[in-house]
């Protein structure tokens, strides 16, 4: 019967449409190939769906990012926070990358997505003509052979909060080395205080005066802009482990034992308590820079060398000292 035939054709047509439309579009989208579709997943679920992206100098890379589980973020290592992109489950966000220099770049997740969030890295290998990426200088701890795993407990700390304003009064009496950039980088606040304490020309200054001077020296190395950047970076990247106050009690390290230097290397421990002035005042910026770049050798502190630029690292360091100064009662 004609009607039966028509009915059969209708069924075939509708069912084929139901099959062809999704499969066809899926096939078409793969065939297009100008965009790279990247799925972000928690490392437990596979991490980035593409580990390594190959690209050419000057060639735009169109990324189509989505998340398969929780909120993630995407950024190229050492890029400004303004360029960080958030990725929401099921939603697509597009971004285009262009690299002017050949070399290896890192991309990473910028929003905490579980305890293994810091492992979410991938590489972008850029080949082609041109000068390679200007590389960062050698880390200070390597340049100057500093043992960044050595204990840095400051024996002497101020008895009350030091003030940079008060310290500024003595600025014209200081020896040249005191205000040298090199000195700042390689000396801890406690060590600098000791050096100044042993200067005959400053023997009339009280202990507290000298602490004010040290504070003034530290503050003039760090503008308010680097300070605020440091806070933002610390909150986005570190506070989940280090705690919002820096106490080493972040949500990600609950259940880990408290750090004890005698137990170094024997398993994951909590980060140190930055609100204890003895901890940071005994550390030089070079030491802190080294720890941030290299990571903690078995303590769970990630290596940030390919993720953060030197400027970003030093802005975080300046914030760390602020935590230390402001935890002195």
């Amino acid at each position: 019967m004609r009607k039966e035939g028509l009915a059969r054709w209708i069924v075939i047509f509708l069912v084929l449409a139901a099959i062809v439309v999704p499969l066809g579009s899926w096939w078409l989208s793969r065939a297009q190939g100008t965009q790279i579709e990247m799925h972000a997943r928690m490392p437990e679920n596979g991490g980035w769906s593409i580990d390594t992206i190959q690209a050419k100098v000057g060639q735009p890379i169109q990324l189509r990012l989505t998340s398969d589980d929780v909120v993630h973020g995407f950024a190229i290592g050492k890029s400004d926070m303004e360029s960080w992109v958030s990725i929401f489950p099921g939603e697509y966000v597009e971004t285009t990358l262009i690299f002017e220099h050949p070399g290896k770049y890192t991309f990473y997740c910028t929003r905490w997505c579980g305890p293994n969030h810091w492992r979410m890295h991938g590489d972008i290998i850029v080949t082609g003509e041109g000068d390679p990426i200007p590389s960062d200088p050698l880390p200070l701890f390597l340049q100057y052979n500093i043992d960044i795993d050595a204990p840095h407990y400051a024996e002497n700390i101020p008895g009350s909060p030091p003030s940079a304003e008060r310290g500024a009064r003595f600025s014209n009496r200081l020896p040249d080395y005191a205000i040298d950039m090199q000195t700042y980088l390689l000396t801890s606040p406690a060590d600098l205080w000791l050096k100044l304490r042993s200067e005959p020309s400053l023997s009339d200054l009280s202990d507290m005066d000298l602490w004010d001077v040290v504070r003034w020296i530290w503050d003039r190395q760090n503008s308010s802009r680097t300070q605020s950047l440091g806070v933002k970076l610390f909150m986005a990247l570190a506070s989940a482990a280090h705690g919002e106050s820096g106490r080493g009690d972040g949500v990600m390290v609950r259940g880990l034992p408290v750090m004890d230097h005698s137990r170094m290397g024997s398993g994951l421990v909590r980060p140190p308590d930055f609100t204890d002035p003895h901890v940071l005042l005994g550390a030089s910026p070079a030491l802190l820079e080294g720890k941030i770049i290299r990571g903690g050798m078995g303590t769970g502190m990630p290596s940030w060398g390919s993720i953060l630029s030197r400027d970003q690292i030093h802005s975080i360091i300046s914030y760390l000292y602020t935590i230390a100064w402001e935890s002195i009662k």
Partner: protein
Amino acid sequence: MTTRLDLTRSPRTLALLRSRWAQFLLRAITLAGFIFTILAGLIGSVVGSHNFAIIFVWIAWWTALKLAFIPFGGRSWCSICPIPMPGEWLQNGGILQPRGRAGIGLGKRWPKSLRGTWMQAGGFLLIGLFGALTLTSAKITAIVLLFILVLALVLSLVFERRSFCNYLCPIGGFTGLYAQAGPVELRVKDADICAAHSEKTCYTACPWGQYPLALKSSANCGLCMECLRVCPSDNIAVNLRPWGSDLGPKTKHRLDEAFLGLVMLASALVDSAVFLGPWGQLKSAAYNIGSPDWFLFAGVFLVIALGVLPGLYTASAWLADHLGSARASLRKSLAYYSQVLVPLGLIAWIAFTISFAIVKFGYVLPVVTDPLGWGWNLIGLSKSAWVGETTSFSLILQVALLMVGLFWSSRVARRISDTIRQAAPLIAFSAFITLAMLWLLVG
């Protein structure tokens, strides 16, 4: 005098019911939609809220089933359900062909020992045990749907008629059970005409294996209208009727209806606790299938569904029997009083669905415009889904509904008992279930 409105009295409605085309087009669309849903689940976004399969199966269709099809149409979904269609078309030898002529299939009778709604109840228990994962995984939803489609097809080639629908489909199980309370029925108009008709074309045509003259309950009639189409005397009526018409002192019920009714109630309670409660550990336990926590959850669920609730119900039925004048066997009492579970369960599930689905209705349109979650924009909508909330209105609505359910089941209990005393145990049982649902949904 019973209150019935025969829809076939209206010529236009009769023509519509008789038309194979109207029904066929609906079925073709649901079949294509079903296949699309399977594909969407398999290759679409793994994020459930952005996948057509999850949203349409567990939110849109489930809500339509619980809030529209069943309470206002009885077993009406079954008349347009796509799952048995491929098999049925093969059995009939064509899409528009009536049953009984050419066709493919062995046409075996379904084994007697496997009849009843026992397996359907078991199927619904499985949905409860694996629900937390299935409802949130597009791939698993798709695999389950594909499995059901293939199973129904295979069964149609081996067994006669709609064996899958009658004895295996978990949805069919409770749809049939609650259709007894529904406002639609199919009955013969004049039994004398049937008596004079020897050929029984209606029985031959019925995919459900029902004999319209003997149809006393709407539980097993899928409203497919085949009997209506082949009856030479236009003797089939499709009546609108008051709710609860298949429940009463003179109606017949079986033990498996009691079991299914209890499984449905247990599932409503456990699902309310798992999906709507504030207990995250319970949700994770239900989700992590195979973990020790899940085994604990499964154990507790089965104890409630197979032990606690049946135990309470049996005690109520036994007590009711002993408070009456006549004595019946426990088995008979359990079967007889199972009617009380029907309105109780129907309303409990409607109330649950309001909490469960209304909150997620905001996902429906976004998933129509982007069914695979690939960033499409088919009907030009903004893609952000609004997340609903339970409002004071929806909460009051749920309370009102639960009270209607309690009123209704108490009425059924009273009607089928000799005295108020005899009805009391079952009314108490209904009150207990209602209180539990009230606390879970609104407490």
